[in-house]
Structure formats: C-alpha cells, structure tokens
C-alpha cells in the first residue's frame, strides 16, 4: 500500500515511467548513431574516392579547416542573416495579412489567388524570375519570403478561424478590450497553428535559401562556397558546408521556437493590479 502511495505522488519511478524510459533510450540512440557512422566510414574506405564520397573522419577534417579560415564567420553570418531576414519578414507579413483577412472577408478573397499561386508555382520559376527582378544579392531574402509567406498566412488564418465561438460571445457580452480578446481568446487558438507552421517553414526557408545562394552565388555566402566546392570537385568541403548549414538552421529554429514558446505562455500576470 505504501509503495502504491509513493508511486502515486511520484516519489518512485517504475521501469515504465517516462523519466526512466527517456534516460534508458540514450545509450540505444547513441549506439544507433555510432553504427551508422561506422557504416559510412567503412563505405568511404571501400570506395576510396574523395570525389564520390567523404567519410566522417575526412568530413571533420574539412570542417575544422573551414572553421579556421578568416572569412568563415563572415560567410556564415551573411547567409544566416539573409535567410533569417527573409523568414522574419514573411513571418510578420503572413501573420498580419492573416489577421487582416480574418477581419475583412474582401481582403481574404483578394489574397486567395496570390496565395494559391505562391503555393503552386515551382520554386525554380521563382528563382529565375527573382534573378531577373532583384538580382543575385537579394535573391535569398526574396525567395525565403515567397516560400514561407503562404505557409504562415494559411495556417495563421486557420488558427484565427479556430477561435472558440462561445468565448468570443463571452468577450462581446463583457465588452472585453481588443487587446484582451487578442491575448486571451485568439492567441490560444492560433498559437498551435503558428508554431507547427513555423517549424515547417523554418526548414523550408533554409532549404530554399541555400538553393537560391547556390544558383545566385551572392558574395559572401555559403551557397557560393558550395558552388565552388562542386566546381572544383571538393566533396569534403561540400559536406562540411552542409553540416554548417544544418547547425545554423538548428540554432535558428531552436531560438525562434523558444521565442514562440514564450509567447504561448498564459500571460495572466498582465491582467489586474498587484499580486
């Protein structure tokens, strides 16, 4: 009986408890990754051709070489900034347009064809058109913007429309101020949509952004370095820059999602005075 009581209040974790299960998973996960790395390294040694394949050991060497170069931080920050600016601009625009479209049906109808076009036009068509219109230096920002905009817009609009009708009636009866309606009725409704669409579009913006840099080769940029690696058959460098892109996109995604998680808190302390 005592044991049951302790289990209930969480003093004892059984084998099946989530805490133990997650810590027991780590050796297994590390083991799986090590097996894959070993298989990769083995294949590299069997193939023994630096142009076709680069194993993890050579990859790490190339990575250390790149990080040690004088212009590494300038190249990485330039690409990071271009993609981040494109994403943040489209995030803000998509959100504001969705809010406007929810409020004004005419705006929603007006935007509908543009959003359908943005979703269906092939990415490469955008790249070619943007190269003509804005040139290679601004291509990444515009492409990230156009790829992410319809995702954020569509999902945020769905989130607003998901707001609880009964809660909106309550807000009307009690004449709640617009900011209170936004923070405490609409925000809980649209945040899950906004968070999941942000997660998807963050990945999309990095993929499309780097692709745009490879095609447009703005200076300085990771895409330009990748293009050079391809031209001079420096496969190790290509792999190294790919790892850098993955790291940068993870850092950006984590930072942005952390910000959204903070914005998703109840924010009840803003209501009323005192404690």
């Amino acid at each position, binding site marked *: 009986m005592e044991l049951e009581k302790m289990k209930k209040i969480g003093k004892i974790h059984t084998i099946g408890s989530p805490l133990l299960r997650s810590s027991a998973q780590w050796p297994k996960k590390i083991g799986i990754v090590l097996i894959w790395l070993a298989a990769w390294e083995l294949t590299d040694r069997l193939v023994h051709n630096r142009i076709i394949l680069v194993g993890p050991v050579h990859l790490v060497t190339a990575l250390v070489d790149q990080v040690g170069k004088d212009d590494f931080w300038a190249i990485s920050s330039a690409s990071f900034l271009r993609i981040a600016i494109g994403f943040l601009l489209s995030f803000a625009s998509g959100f504001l347009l969705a809010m406007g479209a929810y409020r004004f049906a005419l705006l929603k109808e007006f935007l509908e064809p543009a959003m359908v076009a943005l979703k269906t036009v092939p990415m490469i068509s955008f790249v070619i058109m943007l190269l003509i219109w804005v040139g290679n230096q601004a291509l990444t920002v515009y492409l990230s913007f156009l790829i992410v905009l319809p995702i954020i817009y569509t999902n945020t609009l769905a989130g607003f429309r998901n707001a609880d009708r*009964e*809660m909106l*009636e*309550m807000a*009307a*009866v*009690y*004449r*709640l101020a617009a900011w*209170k309606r936004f923070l*405490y*009725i609409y925000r*809980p409704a649209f945040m899950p949509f906004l968070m999941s669409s942000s997660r998807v579009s963050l990945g999309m913006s990095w993929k499309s952004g780097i692709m745009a840099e490879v095609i447009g080769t703005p200076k300085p940029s990771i895409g330009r370095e990748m293009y050079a690696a391809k031209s001079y058959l420096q496969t190790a460098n290509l792999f190294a820059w790919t790892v850098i892109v993955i790291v940068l996109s993870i850092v950006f995604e984590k930072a942005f999602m952390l910000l959204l998680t903070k914005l998703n808190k*109840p924010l*009840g302390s803003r*209501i*009323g*005075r*005192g*404690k």
Partner: protein
Amino acid sequence: MGVEIDGLCKAFGGHRVLRSLDLRLADDGIYCLMAPSGTGKTTLLRIMLGLETKDAGTIRGIKPGEIAAMFQENRLCEQLTPVENVALVCPGRASRAAIRSNLELILPADCMEQPVSELSGGMKRRVALARAMNYPGKMILLDEPFTGLDKETKQRVIAYILSMRNRRIVLAATHGEEDAALLGGKKIILGEG
C-alpha cells in the same frame, strides 16, 4: 424603471420559440425563469445579451454591455487562474488581492493560483459565477447557475449571489423549484402568459 420587454418574438426557421413575450422586471428584483428545456429560456437571455436578434418586440431599460452573464457553459479562459478570469472582465486594472478575497467566499484558497483547466467542474462553475457577479453591470443573467453543485455548496453560492448583487436585477434560468425557493426569487414560467 426596471426592464420592460414587450411583444418579443423569435423563430428559428419555422419553429417559433418566443411568441409575443411580455415581461416586467423591477429594479432590485430577483427572478427565476422556469420552463422545460427547449421553451426559449436561453433564447430570451441571448436576445437580452445582444447575441441573438429578435424578430419583433422591444426591450427597454437595459442594453447589451450593461448585463453580466453566467452562461450555461462556463466559458472561462482555461489557461488563466480563477483570479485572472475574474479580473479579465473587470474594467481598468482591478485589484487582484480584492478579487482573491472575494473568490475565497466560494472557492478554496489553495486553488487561486491554479489554471482553471485543473479545477473540478463545480469549481469552474463558481469561477464563472464570480466573474458575472464582479462585473459592474446593471443586471445579472444566470443560466442554470447551480449545475454540478452539491447542496452545501449551493447554499454558499446562493448566499454569495445575494450578498454580491447590490440591488441589481437578477434573472436566473433554472429547472429546480428548490433552487428558486433558496434564491427567494419571483418565478416566471415561460409560456404561461
């Protein structure tokens, strides 16, 4: 002057819910609206709150925005605490300490910092009631206010309503004769003329 309702009609499609309803609610009065389900109690309350349009008739003496309501559903912000839910509808920046001590009249003190989503059904009902009672309206509409409350809690809640109403008109829709008696309200039976 009170509230005067004359010739109020409402139909949904071909179904007439309210047929030329006349009602007089005196200032300081407590009224219990009693009728079987589906006879227009909630429709009447929704029209008074401005949530439903009327087909015909007039309502004088009160307008939407001057009425506090406890809905059939709790309609609370689930992620906020009881104090925050009440403070949300209070104009200006209401004192949280004052709201907390007011809520402690009908809720245990240890649930004040919990999100409403973690409270029991009966506790949520009391938060919804406290929200209506703390809103500075001229009239209070209560739709099935005692659902899910045991006898002892119901008595505490009724004492709370009576102490908090400050001579405002209370119109409560309820099925229970006993509830109406405890509230000391004048019975209005819909459909009896």
